[in-house]
């Protein structure tokens, strides 16, 4: 509410009695280091030569390519189906909305291997939905389609939540004004609401993409082959040990980090009002 500059409490710069800051900083540093040290070590301290070799290995490359591609398809599907749902959540009232909004987040906390089992229980070729897809030539076990639905299932809540929040941030009166100016609901959405929300939606899509690429548990149940990169990491580790797994893992961490930097940049620009 405060419109005045600098209304936040600048505790750190005050004189004595700031033991809270020191204690909190110390505790916070511990968890920061716990998260950052492993990631930095992977990126900067792993064997550079092995990394180079991994980048020349056709199996690694095709696996990474498959991961990127499958996650991209999942994100595209998630975008087409999820963004409209997010808009409805943000703008309409209907009975049971609160419950549905909650349920949509369930995949985040469901064990990923259990999610894989659940998907197989529906999309497996001996079940109704699976049989239907089989009839049109789509099978989910050990196939790209299986990888895509596994990724979609675990990652689409990220996009839906992010799109919902960004639609909510668009002042509803802008839509109302657009309507009084003669815009149909479609025009108001396309010319006002979506353009104002798109940066956050794009960030959400990138997050979904990265999250899809990261999926291991649900994918391994549905499709051990073709092998996505997270599974390749596991295979190498199981078969050859840590040293062989590190290069592929490091590459995947770098890709995630790059996407993540993109997300952060987008979100920062939005906050800067650009």
């Amino acid at each position, binding site marked *: 509410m405060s419109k005045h500059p600098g209304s936040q409490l600048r505790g750190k710069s005050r004189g004595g009695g700031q033991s809270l800051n020191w204690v909190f900083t110390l505790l916070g540093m511990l968890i920061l280091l716990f998260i950052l040290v492993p990631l930095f070590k992977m990126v900067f301290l792993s064997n550079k030569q092995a990394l180079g070799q991994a980048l020349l290995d056709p199996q690694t490359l095709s696996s990474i390519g498959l991961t990127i591609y499958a996650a991209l398809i999942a994100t595209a599907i998630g975008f087409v189906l999820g963004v409209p749902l997010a808009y409805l959540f943000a703008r309409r009232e209907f009975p049971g909305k609160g419950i549905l909004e909650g349920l949509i987040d369930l995949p985040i906390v469901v064990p990923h291997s259990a999610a894989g089992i659940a998907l197989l229980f529906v999309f497996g070729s001996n079940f109704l939905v699976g049989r239907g897809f089989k009839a049109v030539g789509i099978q989910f076990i050990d196939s790209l389609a299986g990888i895509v639905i596994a990724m979609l299932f675990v990652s689409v809540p990220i996009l839906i939540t992010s799109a919902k929040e960004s639609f909510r941030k668009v002042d509803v009166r802008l839509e*109302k004004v657009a309507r009084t*100016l*003669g815009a149909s609901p479609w025009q108001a959405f396309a*010319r006002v609401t979506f353009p104002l929300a798109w940066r956050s939606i794009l960030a959400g899509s990138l997050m979904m993409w990265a999250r899809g690429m990261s999926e291991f548990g649900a994918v391994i149940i549905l499709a051990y082959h073709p092998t996505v990169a997270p599974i390749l990491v596991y295979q190498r580790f199981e078969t050859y040990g840590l040293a062989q797994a590190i290069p592929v893992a490091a590459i995947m961490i770098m890709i995630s980090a790059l996407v993540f930097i993109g997300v952060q940049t987008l979100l920062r620009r939005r906050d800067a009002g650009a």
Partner: protein
Amino acid sequence: MLKIEGLRVELPGFALQDIHLEIANGDYFVLVGPSASGKTVLLETIAGMHRVSTGHIWLDQRDITGLEPERRQLGMVYQDCALFPHLSVAENIAFGLKVRGRPPSDIARQQERLVRLLDIGPLLARRTTRLSGGERQKVALARALMTDPEVLLLDEPLGALDPQTRENVREEIIKLHTELGLTIIHVTHDFEEAVAMGQNIAVIGAGAIRQVGPADEIFRHPDSEFVARFTMAVNVFPGRTEVGPAGTSTFVVADARLLTRSTVEGPCWAAIRPDSIQLVATSSEAGPDNRFTGQISRIINKGSVVEVTVDLPPAMTCLLTRHGFDQLDLAVGRPVCLVVPPAAVHLFQD
């Protein structure tokens, strides 16, 4: 003419009830009421943004009750303007005609006209974030006027402006009203603003219309305690009327007997505006023609005007200009004489 009949709008935790209004073409109509009284909801309902439970809204014989907002031909301006932040000023203004698919030449011509009328040429290429409060209002007005609306709906158009700019925008709006012959419905919580701008006023409270009429009528003749207090009549007393010889009416409250021109009988209320009470030096005596003496119990200096309260009883407050106050040399506790013109004693039954 905009006509509202038996309108009821139900929202979570709030309802507009039994609204009847007739707003003539070309009228400057002000909807005024305290916060959360439902004025904005009523305005938005006219614009088509809320579902109507019962009742009808007619615009020039056309029943628009169920019509989509985009088909109503109404212009809406919100308090903070609600300019599209991703569009330039020019694009904001052009929006209404662009979505209608009008050719650029039409848009340019119409824009040209409004730019001249509102004198906003230098703003066109700017980003909306670079505008001052007054500039934002002008742009929002231009945007709403581009589509030639039959009725212009203004939601607290002066609310977010500082005093200097407010004067400016107030004149701009009145100019638009006069020059374009627009029908304007203006929502405000500020009764002073309502009286200054409205030809007709509706006072709204708790989702219902409390009183409708010409601005001056509402100002001088409130018909309920709510309206009397809301219009800052200040001296609002419950009492009763006694009809004297020769048909004179006297309002009795506490120790005071007030001659009045009103003709309400029995238990009733009186409202006496503080500016209509005259305060004179104490030399003169209390008398039959509504002259009272008493001690000053409170002085509130409001800058250019001063409120002086005298406990007769009842406590009666009168308003002086600062200059007038200074010349009388008044202070709390000093005895003074109040003169209340009988025509200023307005009686009503609530």
